[in-house]
């Protein structure tokens, strides 16, 4: 074993991580990035060399945030948050954990972006707050929009973490009292061309941020432009956001068998039946949560017994509430039952062939009598009705 390997393994050991765990992590990153097993050693050596060379300049900006995405990053495991901020990134500005305060902190932001013009990575958490000319969020005695205006054109790329940064999140939900929006929408308004990588869900899953750090920074895919080809037309990495939760759900078998939970705390819930009937948005939500899971992979929403609320969807609060209600019946054809069971609607909304196929599949099951007794879907969301029409 080379000396560098030994030193790196010692470093891992200090944190209680074995070489085996580390390679396992590299394997899961490879899977998430759509790379073959053969790339695992490349990822491993990229992480390893990053850990022993100059740190990559980065700044983390909190917009109209609850700080949940910073919190979520603090739950990352391989590499943990200490490795990320001490061995990989030089995260010179991050309000929630940085040592400096006030003017000294502002100076750290300014000098990092200016000294590394075109090289710094900006991670943006929270909504972009446009209300009252940006005074809905004041930092440094002025509207925080000025931070984006000044620095966004000077960074290499922006990773928008969490649904608020992607499209305004819950803060933008009707009636959007503080005129919130997402980073890429705001940059488009301003004509700023810096590439944005969108990582929705509320909060962001730290594993996805780690995957992007590996992809963008360590494998040099930003410089080569390869990263942009891996994004869908909404700026999301296709390999993370390309399949629905339903596609990979461990409870899928119960769905197929027509075994549903109709009430929390019931014997069906205890058996781990499918949560579709209590509002699960898994069939319409495009994330790999069932595979990556959360908090060092200990669990995820559906495993804990709760229906998915589709926090990775665009405009998720207005689209998906009521969260415990069945998905809306949107007219693509007619289901076999009155007020029918029709996950295919989701295919129409999301435009995914896989989901459309699922819809047909489910309708087929309904027709074959395998799904009986489904509660009716809502014809219109209560919230939309209040506003006087469908959206």
């Amino acid at each position, binding site marked *: 074993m080379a000396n560098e390997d030994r030193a790196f393994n010692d470093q891992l050991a200090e944190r*209680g991580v074995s070489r085996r765990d580390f390679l396992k992590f590299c394997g899961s990153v490879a899977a998430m990035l759509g790379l073959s097993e053969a790339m695992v050693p490349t990822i491993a050596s990229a992480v390893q060399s990053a850990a022993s060379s*100059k*740190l990559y300049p980065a700044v983390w900006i909190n917009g*109209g945030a*609850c*700080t*949940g995405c910073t919190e*979520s990053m*603090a739950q990352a495991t391989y590499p*943990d948050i200490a490795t990320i901020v*001490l061995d990989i*990134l*030089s*995260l010179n*500005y*991050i*309000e*929630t*954990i*940085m*040592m*400096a*305060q006030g*003017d*000294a*902190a502002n*100076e750290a932001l300014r000098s990092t972006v200016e000294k590394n013009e075109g090289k710094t990575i900006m991670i943006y958490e929270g909504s972009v*707050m446009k209300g*009252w*000319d940006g*005074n809905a*969020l*004041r*930092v*440094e005695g002025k509207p925080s929009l000025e931070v984006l205006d000044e620095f966004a054109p000077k960074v290499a790329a922006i990773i928008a973490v969490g649904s608020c940064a992607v499209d305004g999140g*819950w*803060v933008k*939900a009707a009636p959007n*009292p*503080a005129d919130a929006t997402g980073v890429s929408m705001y940059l488009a308004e301003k004509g700023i061309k810096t590439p944005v990588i969108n990582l929705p869900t*509320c909060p962001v899953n730290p594993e996805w941020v780690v995957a992007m750090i590996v992809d963008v920074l360590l494998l040099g895919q930003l410089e080569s432009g390869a990263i942009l080809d891996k994004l869908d037309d909404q700026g999301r990495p296709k390999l993370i956001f390309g399949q629905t939760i339903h596609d990979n759900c461990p409870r899928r078998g119960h769905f197929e068998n027509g075994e549903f939970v109709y009430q*929390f*705390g019931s014997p069906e*819930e205890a058996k781990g039946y499918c949560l579709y009937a209590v509002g699960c948005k898994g069939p319409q939500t495009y994330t790999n949560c069932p595979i990556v899971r*959360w*908090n060092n992979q*200990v*669990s*995820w*929403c559906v495993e*804990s*017994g709760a*229906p998915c609320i589709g*926090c990775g969807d665009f405009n998720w*609060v207005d689209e998906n509430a*009521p*969260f*415990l*209600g069945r998905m809306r019946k949107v007219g693509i054809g007619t289901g076999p039952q009155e007020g029918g069971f029709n996950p295919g609607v989701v295919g129409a909304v999301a435009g995914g062939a896989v989901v459309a196929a699922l819809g047909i599949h489910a309708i087929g099951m309904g027709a074959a009598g395998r799904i009986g007794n489904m509660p009716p879907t809502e014809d219109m969301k*209560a919230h939309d009705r209040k506003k006087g029409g469908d959206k």
Partner: protein
Amino acid sequence: MARTVIDPLTRIEGHLRVECEVENGVITDAWVSGGLFRGMEVVMKGRQPSDAYYIAQRICGVCPISHGHASTMSAESALGVTIPNGARLVRNIIEAAQYLHSHILWFYTLAALDYVSPAKALQANIADTYALAQAAGTSTANFAAVQNKVKALVEGGDLSIFTNGYLDHPAFSPDMPAELHLIAVAHYLEALEMQAEASRVIAIMGGKFPHFMTSIPGGTAWMPTEEKLDDVLFRLVRVRDWVYATMIPDTLAIAPYYADALNYGGGTGNFLAWGVFNDESMEMTKRYLPNGAVFVPTKGLAVEDADPAKIAEYVEHSWLDGESGLNPADGQTVPPSEFAGYDVNKRYTWGKAPRYDGKSTEVGPLARMIVAYLRGVAPVKAIVDTALTALGAAGKPEVLVSLLGRVAARNLETAVIADWSLEWVNELVAAVKEGGVEFFKPIEADAGKGAGMWEAPRGALGHWMNVEGGLIANYQIVTPSTWDISPRDAQGVRGPMEEALVGTPILDPERPMEAGRVARSFDP
């Protein structure tokens, strides 16, 4: 006379500006400004009561569990449902795990860098560090590796999260040995793993953290299995043992070097707690950490029952519009038609000014510990008395009304809650074994007025919900920070954090580290 400003106040949740008047090295006046308005109360209107649970917790990514619980309780109170015992235990355990997560993160990740400097840790002798750790009764770590890590960072020139920090500030205790700095830096790194471990308990029972999925109005969607209970218990034991072996001894080892912090930072001396962690009675005054209000300047160390009807919220110095002096049960959140500009003599914050019985009142662990101490909660009394003795203030709980008291109260509370969390898991195990335990009770009603009075790690928290025709007609939230970072009220009386800043010594007005200490002690 000089103005000194901290904007942004870092190492907190959210956006805060602290402006102080400094005269002869002491703060003589202060104004704190909450910089963000999102308008959650406005977003809630017209939605279903059960949707509020999911949205409300997203007000705060550090304490989503408490906001989720207060919201779900407001729906249950409005619509007349009492949750079954299984759900009570599950919620207590999830809530406790969040307290452990939050308090560990606060002490080590957010607050410690005001008392401990990584630069000073570089001067530590490694053998002496082990000896000191042993003498202080705190846990050891690979101190040489930690010191090398800090050294590599400094020599590499990229200081990352330590960039531009006050690494050599004169307000660091000149007497505190370099070895103690190194111990604290090593535990700063360990704490990152321990806060994550506590969060995993929430993820097992709630799907993920931050933002959890299972405390739906009516009970919980989580149903225990033997395997999951075992996993939860194992992790809570690990965190509990670390709190006793590391966090508490660290607190007691560092505190004597900042004993002067017993002399300032006390604030208004008015304290309020709604209480948290229900027992089987589900009554606020019988909670494990009970409800209560204490007014030290006017009534001394005496506790009375706290009543939500005594709250009024004022907006004279807030950028918000709307009627001033309302109780949140009939409160308003009215975005202004125009932004009035920042002026400390007029309007200077997005926050309202809540007052309890007309008084500027502090909430948080210090309030909870004082209330529980005065109500004779045994484990609180025991650990507070031990700490008072260690600080040379045996029999004088009034010294807790200070900066150091506020910091210590939070850490002592961590230990008490860690013990209780194990009790609740064992109680749940016994209930499951016995059989017949219930977790959910469906809600039938579609109208009513209710409130969820609870506590986040950072203090008393209330959500108020009015439901008409199955939809939310009005929603109000008074967060802990709304109390603590309150601006002046209609009478011009300062908020608790503003009051606590007054009297704080400032060695270098250009680098007001001590003001940051006082502001952060509230965990705003």
